[in-house]
C-alpha cells in the first residue's frame, strides 16, 4: 500500500511530501502504517530518509494524542484504518492537523487547546463544591449522563481542526473548550454566581459568539461529544447574561 506523508522539519520550514510503499494487512491502523515506515524509511524513489515523526501514547483511542489528517480529515491514528478513506490513485495522504502550528512532520503544537480551556476557565468549580462542608445535591442519571457525554471529550483537537472559524490566527476557542465550559456549568452544586462567571468568560472575544454554526465540529468529533448542545447552551447563557446586564442599566 502506498502512503504519502506531508513532511516539515521545523515550524517555519517549507513542507514537502514523501511517499512510501508499506506491506501491511488491510485494515491496519494509521499508527501501524507509520511504524512500518519507521522500520523501513525508504521512499518510493529509493531515498533513505528519517522516518516521519508522529505522536502515539495510549493506542486505544482514549488519550487523543495521535490526531492526524487522513485524506484531509482529522482522525485518531490509533483508531482509524489507514485505508478507511479509499486511497486515491496516489495513495493514502497523511498530514498534520492544519489549525495547529506544525512542530515537525505530523506532530503539532497542541497548546491552544489548554489555552482555550484556561480562557474560558472551564476548571472553575461552584463555591459549594470547593468547600468540604455539607453534602452535594443529588443528580439524576440523565443529568449525569449528559455530564459523562461532555466529559468524554478526549481533547483530540479534531473539532478545532475542522472548524471554519479557527484558522488564520483567529482567537476563537473552538468547540472543545465550549463543551468543557458547559460541563462546568452542569456541576451538581452549580449556582448563579458560578454560571455568571462562566458566561462572562464565554462572552469574551473569541468566545461562543464567534461560532459560525457550520457544525463541522459535530461531524469531526470521534467521541460524539454533544457539541451542538454545548454551543447552544453557551449562546443561551451569554445572551441571558447580556440581557440581565442591559436591563440592570
Amino acid at each position, binding site marked *: 500500500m502506498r502512503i504519502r506523508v506531508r513532511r516539515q*522539519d521545523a515550524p517555519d520550514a517549507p513542507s514537502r511530501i514523501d511517499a512510501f510503499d508499506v506491506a501491511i*494487512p488491510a485494515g*491496519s*491502523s494509521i499508527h*501501524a502504517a507509520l511504524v512500518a515506515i*519507521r*522500520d523501513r*524509511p525508504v521512499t518510493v524513489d529509493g531515498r533513505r530518509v*528519517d*522516518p516521519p*515523526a508522529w505522536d502515539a*501514547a*495510549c*493506542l*486505544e*483511542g*482514549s*488519550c*487523543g*494524542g495521535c490526531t492526524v489528517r487522513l485524506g484531509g480529515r482529522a482522525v485518531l491514528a*490509533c*483508531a482509524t484504518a489507514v485505508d478507511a478513506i479509499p486511497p486515491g490513485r496516489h495513495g493514502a495522504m497523511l498530514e498534520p492537523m492544519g489549525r495547529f502550528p506544525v*512542530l*515537525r512532520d505530523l*506532530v503539532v*503544537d*497542541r*497548546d491552544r*487547546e*489548554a489555552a482555550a480551556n*484556561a480562557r474560558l*476557565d*472551564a*476548571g*472553575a*468549580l461552584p463555591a459549594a*463544591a*470547593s468547600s*468540604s462542608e455539607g453534602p*452535594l*445535591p*443529588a*443528580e*439524576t*442519571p440523565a*443529568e*449525569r449522563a449528559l*455530564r*459523562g457525554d461532555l*466529559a*468524554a*471529550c478526549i*481533547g483530540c483537537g479534531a473539532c478545532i481542526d475542522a472548524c471554519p472559524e479557527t484558522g488564520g490566527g483567529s482567537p476563537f476557542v473552538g468547540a472543545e473548550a465550549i463543551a468543557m465550559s458547559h*460541563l*462546568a456549568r452542569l*456541576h451538581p*452544586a452549580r449556582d448563579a454566581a458560578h454560571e455568571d462567571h462562566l458566561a462572562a468568560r464565554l462572552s469574551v472575544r473569541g468566545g461562543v459568539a464567534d461560532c459560525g454554526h457550520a457544525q463541522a465540529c459535530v461531524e469531526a468529533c*470521534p*467521541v*460524539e461529544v454533544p457539541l451542538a448542545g454545548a454551543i447552544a447552551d453557551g449562546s443561551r447563557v451569554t445572551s441571558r447574561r447580556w440581557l440581565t446586564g442591559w436591563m440592570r442599566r
Partner: protein
Amino acid sequence: MSAAPVAVIGAGAAGLLAALELASRGVSVALYATGGARPVASAGRWLAAAPLDTPAGDRAEEDAHVADALAASRGTADAAMVRAMVRAAPAIAEAMIRRGVPFHRRDDGRVAREGGGGHDAARLLHADAATGFHVVHALDRALAHAVTGGAPVQRCAGWEIVAIATDDAGVAIGVVAQDLRTMELHARPASAVILASGGFAGAWARSSAGIDAVGIGIAAAVRAGAVLADPDRIDLHPLAIPRPDKPIPLPDVLRGLGGRVWVPADPDDRRRARDIPAGDRVVVLDGGPAASGRADAARALAGALAEGRGVAEASGAPSHAWLDVTHLGARALAARLGRLAVEIERVTGLGLAEAPVPVVPVVHATLGGLRIAIDLDPSGHPRADSARHFATSVPGLFAVGGAAASPSGAARIAGHRLLAGLFGARLAAGAATVWAESDGARAAEAAAATLARRAGDEAVAYDRLVARAEGDGETAEEVRDALGQALHAHAGLSPSDPRALADAIDAIGARAGRARCSDRAPRVNRGAPAIRRLDAALLLARAVAASAEAREAGMASVAVRLANGQVVTTGGEAAGAADAAEAR
C-alpha cells in the same frame, strides 16, 4: 532568591493531585509531563471506596475491605498500608465527586456503587467505567484553573525526565529533563522530587499499558540509588480485546455481572460466535458473583489458550476466547456502565451487547516499583507532618502511583490502582512539603554546580545517542520489541522462567548496545528518546529477572538496587519498612 520548586514528574492522576495539593499549601511546583500540555495517562476503570450509607470510620466495613485485598494477594499485601488507604478512601472519593468527576448515579440521584472485581461488597464508584480518564481530566482542569488564579505551578509540558540528580550525600537535588520539541536539556534544582511517572508494564509485548510506559522515571530513580521492591510482581487481566497495535482491557467486573468466557468445543468450529449454541461452547471462566480473581482468571485463560483450545482468525495467528455479556442487553449495560459499550464500539467496532467479543489475557500493570515508606502512628493512621510518607530510599525523592511499589502485593482488587495513586499523592505532597522546607531547601541551594555538571554530561550523552543514527543495523525500537517478547514469554502470563529471561536479556542487551538511532532530526527527535526507553526497559527487565530468581529461591519480598552498575538483590526486608536510615 525564591526556593527551588518541588519537581513532580508525571501528569497522570497521582502527579496532578500531588501538584494541586502542593500548590494549595503555597509550595511552588514544576510539573514535568512527557505528553505535552494535554492529559494523556488515565489508568484505572474504578475507584474503590465504601458502600453507600457506610458510617464514617465503620470498623467492620474497613476490616472487610482490607480482608478482600489481603485475600486476593494471598497475604502478600502490606496490610497496614492497605488499611490506611482504605480508611482514606471515602474522603478521596468525596473529593473527586466535589471536583466534578461524573460518577455514575442511581435512580435516586446518589452516587452508585458496583460490586465484584474481588470485593465482597458494592464499593466501586465509576464514571462510565473509565474513572481514571475522568479523574485525570477533572484534575487537569482544576490545575489549569488554579494556575489561572495564580497558583505557583510551572508546567513543563513535553519535557521528558532524563535523570534525577543527587548530591555527594546521595540526596535528590534536582532533575535533568529534555524538551522533546527542541531537544534542549535542562537541569533544574528541586527542593524535593515526587515521581509519579507510572509503572513499566509497557515493557512487555502485548500488554495493555501505553507504549511508552516503560518506566523511564523508575529507571532514573534506580540509577540515582533508589531501591526497587518486588519488580517481578505484575497485575494480570483476563479480558482484553486483542488488536494488532495493542489490546484494550475491558472491565473485569463484566464477569461479575454474569459475563462468561468460553471457547468452541470444536476448535475448528467456523460458525460466527453468536451462532454457536450453549451446548457447543466450553466455558473457561464462569461468570456471576463467585467469579474467580482477576489474576487467577487470566492465568486460567492463558493456560487454555496455550493448550490450543482458543480461536485463531488465521492459522498461526494468536488465539483468543469469547466473552459473552449479551444476556445483559444494551439498556442494562448502559444503565450499569454508562458509555462503556459506546466507547468500546467506537474504537474496536465491536458491540458488547450484540454478540460475543474476542478476549485474551494480558499483562496489565506492574505491581512492583520503588520501595516506599509510610509513617503510621500506633493506631495505624498516617502521622501528620511526617517527611517519610512515600519516601524512597533516596532522601528527597518520593514515589507515588505506578512508580511506587503497590501496597496490594502480588495481586490487586478493582479500584485499588487509582485509590493507591490518589492516596499516595495526598500523603507525598505533605511529606515533600515538610522535606522541602527543611533539608530539601538547603540541598537544592547548594546544587548549582552539581546540576550544571549533570546537564553537561547528559548533553554529551544525548549527542552520542543521535550519532548512532548512521549505519544499517536494527533500531532501538526493534530491539525493544524483542525485549518485550522476552518478558512476555518468560515473565508474563505463563509461569515465570527467570533463567531463560536472564539469558534472553543478556543477548538483547548486547543488541541494545549496538542499536541504531532511528532518527537524525535536530527537532522532535524520536530516535534518541527511544534508545533511552530501551535502556530503561532493559534495566527494569534485569531487575525483574533478578527478583524472580530470588523469589524462586524462596524469598518472600525482594529488594533490588544498582551496585557498581549491576542489578543486585538485597531481599528479605518487610514490605513498607523502607528505612530512611539506610540511605543516609
